[in-house]
């Protein structure tokens, strides 16, 4: 007999607003249906109300973890429209902050994956060592996660020599810890047995379902935007694309851990070869790019991120499209979660398989400013919401 389990919007391990309905027979998962429409914030419509300079801070809030990638993609998009070229030092500074936020995002994911397979100790250690990267980001950009570092025409702050010393010291500590975590993941049998040949995605399926980022590279396909379509300073800073070919959750863990080590070397290289000169070109406050359109692509920690902008000469973008990596990985997740033939998916594997694509649902959903009162199922407009909150707030003080 089979019945449905909802791994719903409220779930202890996935604070992500999505509903996965699983058709289950005993312990085996037969079918899955993914529904993503819980927090749609209307960001694409939001862009059309903001001029270009204010759009940076909206782009930054698309995703809480990988916001350095979003601001980088946004500012690069506008610079392509304007046809302006940013100074080489700004390119290297952008690369440093992008790679540091990739380290932070991968370490966060590694801890979460350990938590999903029940390995609490590794979760605690990984998240303790992640504090080092967050302190670095806070020293450079002024805020732990929401970096607000890139702006149109360059970056907003410079790296002074003593910040550079701090970076190097923390990176040595991080490298040694990441190597230790990698050994733990490869040696600990309970981790191996929970992640090997779980959530299989064959290379042919990965290409066909347009998987992106570490999910694609864990299935043996050598594709990375930083190598194929190098932006900012990626053509000068050497790095090798990490691929594993066992196509399962174990490979995804190893891809992400190796990428952390790659990022550390990239940051060290760019610190050694940091060109001098100013880090920002003078831009007017209200930017009016000529009419036209442009596509900019960045390798976000979760995969390949695409921004498309069309401007009509005014100070607000005419249309701004954001395609986030998690949206691209959802079809392949559905494929990984259904058992076919001898490949069986158990209920116990659901959190780690879905977690292995490093889902960031807040990137994927974008809805209007309308608050749906689920219980009474009537629609409030934004003003009613404002009036309601004002009323309640007055009663409070």
């Amino acid at each position, binding site marked *: 007999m089979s*019945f*449905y*389990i909802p791994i719903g919007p409220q*779930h*202890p*391990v996935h604070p992500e607003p999505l509903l996965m309905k699983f058709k289950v027979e*005993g*312990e085996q998962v037969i079918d899955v249906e993914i529904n993503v429409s819980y927090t749609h914030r209307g960001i694409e419509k939001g862009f059309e109300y903001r001029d270009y300079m204010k759009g940076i801070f909206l782009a930054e809030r698309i995703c809480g973890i990988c916001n350095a990638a979003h601001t980088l993609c946004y500012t690069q998009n506008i610079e392509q429209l304007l046809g302006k070229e940013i100074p080489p030092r700004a390119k290297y500074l952008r690369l440093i902050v992008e790679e540091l936020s990739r380290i932070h995002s991968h370490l966060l994911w590694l801890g979460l994956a*350990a*938590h*999903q*397979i*029940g*390995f*609490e*100790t*590794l979760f*605690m*250690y990984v998240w*303790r060592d992640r504090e080092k990267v967050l302190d670095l980001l806070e020293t450079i950009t002024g805020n732990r996660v929401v970096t607000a570092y890139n702006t149109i025409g360059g970056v907003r702050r410079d790296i002074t020599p003593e910040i550079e010393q701090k970076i190097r010291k923390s990176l040595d500590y991080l490298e040694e810890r990441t190597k230790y975590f990698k050994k733990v993941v490869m040696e*600990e049998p*309970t*981790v191996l*047995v*929970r992640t090997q040949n779980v959530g299989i995605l064959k290379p042919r399926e990965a290409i066909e379902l347009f998987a992106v980022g570490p999910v694609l590279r864990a299935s043996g396909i050598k594709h990375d935007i930083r190598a194929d379509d190098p932006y900012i300073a990626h053509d000068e800073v050497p790095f090798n694309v990490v691929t594993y070919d066992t196509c399962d959750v174990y490979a995804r863990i190893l891809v992400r851990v190796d990428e952390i080590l790659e990022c550390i070397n990239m940051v060290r290289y760019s610190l050694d070869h940091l060109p001098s000169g100013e880090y920002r070109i003078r831009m007017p406050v209200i930017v009016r790019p000529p009419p036209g359109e442009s596509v900019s692509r960045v390798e976000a920690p979760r995969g390949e991120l695409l921004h498309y902008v069309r401007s009509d000469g005014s100070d607000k973008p005419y249309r701004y499209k954001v395609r986030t990596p998690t949206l691209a990985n959802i079809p392949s997740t559905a494929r990984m979660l259904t058992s076919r033939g001898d490949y069986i998916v*158990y*209920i*116990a*594997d*659901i*959190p780690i398989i879905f977690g292995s694509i490093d889902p960031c649902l807040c990137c994927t959903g974008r809805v209007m400013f309308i608050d749906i009162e689920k219980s009474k199922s009537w629609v409030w407009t934004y003003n009613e919401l404002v009036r309601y909150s004002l009323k309640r707030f007055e009663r409070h003080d």
Partner: protein
Amino acid sequence: MIEVLYKMIEMILFPGFAFIGVLSLLYEWIDRKFYARLQNRIGPLYAGPHGILQPLADFIKLLSKEDIIPEGADKFLFTLTPILFFAINLLLTLFLPICGTTGVISFTGDLIFFVALLTMISILVYTAGMASTNRFATIGAERAVLQLIGYEIPFMLSIVSVAISSRSLTIKNIVESQSSIWHILGPNFLAFIIFAITAQAELERIPFDIPEAEQEIVAGWLVEYSGKKLALFRLGKDVETLLLCGLGATLFLGGPLGPVVPGLEIVFYTLYFIVKSIIVLLVLTTLRALFARLRVDQMLVLSWKYLIPLSLISVLIVRVVF
């Protein structure tokens, strides 16, 4: 008459329920504090000095919470299971020799009765899950039974190998036979390792907390319980932890035996019992901090392919040596 009264006091007060209740809360505090220290955290801190009253605070909080019975649930079984779960655990603690070589109750062959009731507790977990007609609870209950099949045989065999080496099935004789050397130092070391692993499975802790895997099926068979019933289940689980640590100490570390000042035997025996069972508790907590959670089928493979042959070997060794 005085005899009955004396037995009543023993059962209620000293080595009985009140003492066990306090001790089990203390054990939960030690377990959480040590587990946190292993992970470089602090653990409970604000309730009482160093958070020692935290388990008591949780218990009282649960008592004050609302007690919901889902309408589809089988009411009688739903309310009976927590009470039975807690009662059996308390009853079993009376067998442990705390302030002397014999517990409050002891008769020849009480080890078999002890182990039979232990299996009874796992059956109760199944009825608890089935009584609450929640999807997650049914899956949790199924997993509990699957896990029971996995760890029950090695658990029994490790106890049997101790019984063989002390040539008796009563706890009193087992304790006395260890006055010269503890079982753990002799050929029973392998049996102790198997006992520790299967005790971890019986208590449903990290490598084997599959029936209530918080990440997969929310809270497994405990999902529908709240208020007083959940409080009883939690306290029952604490008492069960104390029970198994005490059993481990009695079978392998010689229970309350040790050099004693003639006048104050009871005090020394109790101290030895507490110290030895805390050692077993720390071993279980280290196990909890070392591993990731297994899947049910992997757990069965582990026990049928590795634990059972190992326990058979240990019984063989003990049979040859003694």
